């Protein structure tokens, strides 16, 4: 009897721990990534994650995506954006990549990562399923600026992203920053 009770308690604790872990990991990865960039590079972001306004067309960004027909990529109100301006992002980017991947690999799949030693640009695109939606996280770091964007994509726009990850990643970042300025 005591064995059964102990087993039940252990199972309950395990389930609670797992649930807490999932909520923690899924809930706030965007903020964690922003904080990680701040700590790694000793920088501060200037934008606060926000919900983008609805109904603003950004066809010019979508036009750059191969096979792109959508007027906009991100689902209305799903954009979270953090911007870092005019700060130094010099450092070991292979070390940064490995830190980032370790932090996100539990809940996100790294789709494409590009690094350019010549111009110091790094682009990371991660993807995860969130119920019937798809979350995409795009991190772009240049020598003096950086952006972190998280959006929800429809299945149709996710297909565009998967066909042309680099093009769609750039378009998502442009779309988020344009919406921020409007």
């Amino acid at each position, binding site marked *: 009897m*005591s064995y059964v009770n102990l087993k039940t308690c252990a199972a309950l604790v395990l389930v609670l721990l797992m649930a807490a872990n999932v909520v923690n990991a899924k809930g706030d990865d965007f903020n964690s990534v922003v904080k990680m960039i701040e700590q790694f590079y000793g920088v501060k972001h200037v934008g606060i994650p926000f919900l983008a306004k609805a109904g603003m067309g950004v066809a010019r960004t979508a036009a750059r995506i191969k096979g792109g027909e959508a007027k906009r990529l991100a689902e209305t109100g799903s954009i979270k954006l953090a911007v870092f301006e005019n700060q130094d992002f010099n450092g070991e980017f292979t070390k940064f990549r490995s830190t980032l991947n370790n932090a996100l690999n539990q809940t996100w799949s790294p*789709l494409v990562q590009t690094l*350019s*030693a010549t111009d110091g640009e790094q682009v990371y695109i991660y993807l995860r*399923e969130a119920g019937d939606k798809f979350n995409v996280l795009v991190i772009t770091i240049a020598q003096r600026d950086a952006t972190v964007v998280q959006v929800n994509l429809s299945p*149709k726009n996710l297909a565009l992203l998967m066909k042309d990850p680099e093009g769609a990643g750039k378009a998502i970042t442009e779309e988020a920053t344009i919406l921020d300025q409007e």
Partner: protein
Amino acid sequence: MKTLCQTKLATSLLALLLVAASAVVTRAQDSRLQLSSLDHLAAKASQSVDVNIDEKLIRIALKVFSDQDPEEREVKKVVAGIKGIYVKSFEFENEGQYTAADMETIRAQLRGPGWTRLVNVMSKKEGNLEVYLLMNGETVGGLAVVSSDIRELVVVNIVGPVDLDKLAKLEGQFGIPELDIEPAKPKTKNDEK
């Protein structure tokens, strides 16, 4: 005493389960190459691209690609059954940025059991092109392409049933670079490694 026996039984079952699970994973990832030995080249490359499309992302692709769109329908057909697509590509401004030892970390894996180099594969691009198939009996279990030039190194690894025709259809999709491979009938030669 009964509790101790139950605990031992539970532990043994758990251990057995873990061993069985790891065996399944090992079997499923036979044709997955370990490419992380090339990661250090990113620091020297003017441009490096790392594509990781695992089984989960393939499943998502199959879900979101439309049957109504002819191009997406074709890609769906090609990736159905594939368990992963992995690409590492590096472009360098100067010569000699990657070494024979870097290449060897990949080629050593491709000398493993089941891998066969296709010898009659051509590319319109300059440089060396090596294409390998992993055969599991009569079926293809995976494919690897190593394309190297003095200023460029590309490794493509597709896990699962795939052939050159399928690879050609995937070029330019999912971040796979244009390799300009001309599919040919697979005359194989085991010793050519």
